[in-house]
């Protein structure tokens, strides 16, 4: 079963912090968007997405900073233009495509546990010289189904 959206680790964190067993977060979190790479024909572990984000694109790829504005009517959206570095070599190939993005609280790509996983409307290929830009308001997050 697909588990796009807020991941269980984050849902558990909310329930702990806001329903009597912890304290709300009061520190500003630096968040990053990571690209999820899937291989055609291979299974994706939809519980953890580990393979998706462990198999980061090649070369000079690194996660891109995302900044969210203030929530409005139960929805929070990115306020900045999310810009990935221009690929110095092909990040995808004939069988590896970017089909989803993850939101992480670290730029370190060895941390493969996303807070949020979102599918892209269509898969993306990035070859040398190209980049990915996500416009403001592209990412919309809610605690319920949008």
């Amino acid at each position, binding site marked *: 079963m697909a588990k796009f959206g807020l991941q269980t680790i984050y849902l*558990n964190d909310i329930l702990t912090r806001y329903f009597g067993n912890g304290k709300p977060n009061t520190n*500003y979190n630096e968040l990053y968007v990571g690209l999820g790479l899937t291989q055609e024909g291979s299974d994706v572990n939809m519980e953890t997405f580990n393979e998706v984000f462990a198999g980061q694109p090649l070369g000079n790829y690194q996660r891109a900073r995302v900044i969210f504005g203030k929530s409005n009517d139960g929805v929070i959206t990115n306020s900045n233009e999310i810009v990935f570095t221009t690929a110095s070599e092909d990040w995808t190939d004939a069988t590896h495509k970017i089909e989803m993005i993850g939101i992480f609280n670290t730029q370190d790509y060895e941390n493969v546990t996303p807070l949020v996983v979102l599918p892209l409307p269509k898969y993306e290929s990035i070859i040398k010289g190209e980049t990915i830009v996500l416009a403001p308001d592209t990412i919309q997050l809610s605690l319920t189904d949008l």
Partner: protein
Amino acid sequence: MVARFMISPKLTGTILDDTFGTPTENYASTDIYVGLGINFDEEAFEFTKEPVSKGFTIVPAPCIFSEPANGIIRNTNAIKWPKATQDWTGIGETINYIGLYYRFDGTTAGNYTYELVAVLPLMPPESVLANETMVLNPNAIQLRLSNR
């Protein structure tokens, strides 16, 4: 009729801002206090009718929840109200909702104000008449977050 667990718009915004944006609200305590509701206005996120009077059924002791597992927490202890000294529900009327509140210190000792932060349906709805006792068993309150 609300058929699911709902978090108030204010707390929803706070959670989103705390995690993804800039934290602004700093709750001193997130202990949860439980009360009951008969009618609920989803738009205003408030009970429009409660047993006897507003805040009458809010239990003074906080509800203890389990550690979360798979995005779910449950109350670990039974929640018991004092025996009703008058009818809490009228003819044909039922308690339909469980309300979860944050509590804030008032201006004088022992005087509190409450903020309704979440609502879930009471299943099945219950009527409570004079001399009856309302009890919610352990695991009766199940909070499940899901945006899938």
